[in-house]
């Protein structure tokens, strides 16, 4: 069900700079609203949560509902004061998670 997530952000930034982070994960986001050819409801299975941390501290969290499009895309900003590592975690309805990390050098 799950496949690789993609994250795009600059590898370098100045101290105090506000950078943009773009994230995407391939996922059908099955809404639970559809039926198959036999008329049976297709069970909901979506990415219901995404969190972003920097050096272990949460900077953003997202709660997603079936109204979010397939292959959920989220872009946001963050102000960087030091070098470190971003970690992004996506949570599937089935309990599985996908993690992706990205480093940034601030100086």
């Amino acid at each position, binding site marked *: 069900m799950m496949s690789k997530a993609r994250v795009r952000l600059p590898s370098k930034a100045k101290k105090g700079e*506000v950078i943009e982070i773009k994230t995407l994960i391939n996922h059908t986001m099955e*809404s639970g*609203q*559809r*039926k*198959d*050819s036999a*008329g049976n*409801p*297709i069970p909901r299975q979506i990415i219901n949560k995404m969190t972003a941390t*920097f050096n272990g*501290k*949460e*900077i*953003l*969290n*997202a*709660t*997603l*509902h*079936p*109204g*979010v*499009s*397939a292959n*959920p*895309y*989220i*872009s*946001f*900003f*963050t*102000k960087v004061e030091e070098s470190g590592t971003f970690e992004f975690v996506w949570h599937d309805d089935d309990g599985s998670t996908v993690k992706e990390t990205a480093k940034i050098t601030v100086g």
Partner: protein
Amino acid sequence: MRAVKRRDVLRGAAALAAAGTVVLTLRPARATPEKTAEVMGKLIGGKTAKEGRVTLTMPQIAENGNTVPLTVSVESPMTEKDYVKAVHILADGNPEPAVATFGFTPQIGKAEISTRMRMAKTQNIWAVAEMSDGSAWMTKTEVKVTIGGCGG
């Protein structure tokens, strides 16, 4: 009346092929503005959201309701003392009014977020911001949908 572009027809055909055996027959119940206001009230803890401070940028006409881009930005200094705590997106004509909630921290530095949403039909999209001072602000925008999303 807009002429149907060949590209759009091809894209639609590709989407149907991708859906495979799925037959799109279900007509789920839709949210209403009243129901959406109720859901919003619960999300923001019973507060009343005032109009203002929130900008929701979306296309006026969405050709494909399966993926409609949106950007929410909120007037806020995003400091430790004064920041946006959360942004909620709601849709008053989708099967479920709640679309997404984004929990912000002062660390994000700029109160702006972008994503893509499904729209079942032409309707109003609501963006609501909860501030660290306890106030709540909102805006609504109507988006016309040519081909509905939500697989319904």
